[in-house]
């Protein structure tokens, strides 16, 4: 498919540390299309956040980024600061996990949103930007936007601050909105409201959304397609229904099994811990924790292959149906 808004090919991120290179992302490829929600799922340290921080150029100087990430025709990997700044916010915008500290405490909320508009649309007047800011606050469902725009961040609840962050993120109609665990710091009812807001923006503005999360409930509710990451690689990819019902990767199944569901008494956690990425294991990185591990898993790095209804990077994906 060539109409992808964001297209990542073979992205690799390595951190130079005192202990040696840490391979945080090891060859990730993906496409996000307009108006689509791509769910990116995985444990902590699976490289899901790092992948997207790297293409935004928000990682420190010790990160080495290889591969390709294109928004339209603009290549992000290796782009200079100036080009990067133009892309951030206007082409790709990002919202973060912790809205509590993501707003500047000394400026009025409306002014911060207006500032984001002015950062990219310099010919706009300050009054116009302020009015637009109020519109945006209204769009993300903040009641009494005129009054709220004149308040400070400490007068907003967590959910309201995340709405403000979303307003800032969509201020310049970005083509892609990357939401890095946008609801993790919020309680469940607020979470539902925030997801609603993101969904409405996707529908109304045709924004492509990348939803990074470890909450499969959020993915089930929001995503059109899902990709599951483990140890810096994509291990399974499919549309959302098949991930939940037709998974052909033991790790995805492990994630599903460790998720609380009504009517099930006990959770089945995945034993062990993710591998140390200073020395990533050869072959399938999950095999040390996998109940179906076999000698052939230690061979080459498994690639994504269409098996049944999903693309799975498990060498035993074909046999898996019989094994369970």
């Amino acid at each position, binding site marked *: 498919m060539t109409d992808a808004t964001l297209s990542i090919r073979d992205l690799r991120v390595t951190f130079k540390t005192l202990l040696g290179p840490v391979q945080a992302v090891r060859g990730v490829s993906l496409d996000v299309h307009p108006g689509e929600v791509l769910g990116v799922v995985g444990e902590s340290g699976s490289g899901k956040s790092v992948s997207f921080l790297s293409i935004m150029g928000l990682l420190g100087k010790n990160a080495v980024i290889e591969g390709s990430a294109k928004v339209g025709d603009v290549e992000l990997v290796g782009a200079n600061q100036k080009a990067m700044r133009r892309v951030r916010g206007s082409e790709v*915008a990002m919202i973060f996990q912790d809205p509590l500290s993501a707003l500047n405490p000394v400026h009025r909320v409306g002014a911060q949103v207006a500032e984001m508009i002015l950062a990219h649309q310099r010919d706009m007047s300050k009054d116009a930007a302020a009015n637009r800011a109020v519109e945006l606050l209204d769009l993300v469902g903040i009641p009494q936007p005129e009054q709220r725009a004149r308040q400070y961040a400490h007068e907003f609840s967590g959910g309201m601050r995340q709405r403000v962050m979303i307003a800032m993120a969509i201020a310049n109609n970005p083509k892609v909105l990357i939401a890095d665990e946008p609801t993790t710091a919020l309680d469940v009812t607020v979470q539902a409201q925030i997801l609603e807001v993101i969904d409405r923006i996707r529908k109304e503005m045709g924004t492509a959304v990348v939803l990074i999360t470890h909450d499969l409930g959020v993915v089930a509710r929001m995503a059109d397609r899902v990709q599951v990451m483990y140890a810096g690689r994509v291990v399974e990819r499919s549309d959302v229904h098949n991930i939940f019902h037709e998974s052909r990767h033991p790790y995805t199944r492990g994630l599903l099994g460790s998720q609380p569901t009504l009517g099930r008494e006990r959770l089945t956690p995945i034993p062990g811990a993710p591998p140390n990425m200073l020395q990533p294991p050869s072959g399938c990185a999950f095999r040390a924790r996998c109940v179906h591990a076999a000698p052939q898993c230690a061979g080459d790095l498994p690639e994504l292959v269409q098996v049944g209804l999903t693309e799975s990077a498990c060498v035993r994906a074909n046999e898996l149906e019989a094994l369970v």
Partner: protein
Amino acid sequence: MRDAISDPIELPDPHSDASIGVLKTSMSPKRMALKRFVNHRAALISAIVLVCIIIFVALAPITTRYGVNETIFPASEGPNQNLAPFDLAWFGTDGNGRDLYSRIIYGAQVSMLIGLFTAIGSVLLGTLVGGLAGYKGGWLDDILMRVTDIFLALPLLVVLVIVRGMLKNVSWVSTLMGDPNSVRFLVILLTIIGWMGVARLIRGQVKQLKEREFVEAARALGATSKRIMFRHLLPNSVGQIMVALTFAVVGAIAAEATLSFFGYGPDAGSGMTSLGLLIRDSKRAVPPGYWWLVVFPGVFFIILSLCINFIGDGLRDAVDPKMQQELK
């Protein structure tokens, strides 16, 4: 599993009256800081005292009884020197028959101007160096901070001697700094020796702020470095800068007194004096027992320093976000 989750969740309509509630009046961080400052008893009293002093000092010709170099009455009308306090001279007179009270007010004028200008100079220079070092980091940070360390290692009197003695023949130095006894010379000298604390403070502040999420969020949404510096880092450091400014004023006034004590004080011309010079002169008043020449300038100096220090303490507490909880 999917069915269980995708059940529509009833969301309250954010625009309905029920969810609007009553908005409390908005309070800016500045106003909150002011409120905390007012709650700081010592700082509030100090501020009131300082304002009184400033009014007296600023309106000097009106609030003083005599000129700075004027005797209370001509020597021909009787002895006017070293008189103990009486109705014509509330604080007594000095060895030249001049009113001590008037001289303290005029002296405070000079001292406070030196303090203020030195503090402003130090804070500007310190903020520039510290902000640059903290924001840019890397080798620039290393170099700037080592330069700061070098300046910190310089003792005031040694710099004074070097600048006075060795650099006075360098034409651009004397053009810039003026006569070694001028107020300008002292202000520049004290600035050279006074900016390092501010630089370190601001560097730390900027380094810390730079990692805060709102700065990262701003960068993720395409803010330029300039914007981040002037919209995010600087406004969030204003409190710290104010505190530094306050303490720099005290430091400069004390340093002026030190220099005056060693005989390097300001000579503002035509008998002008400063608090430091008055305190130096009191040395000669001790053996004959002219207590007023010692007590009044000393006490005034202490009150002035204490007031500014307390205000600095109050400001520091007021701008400290950890104090937020205590505010009702």
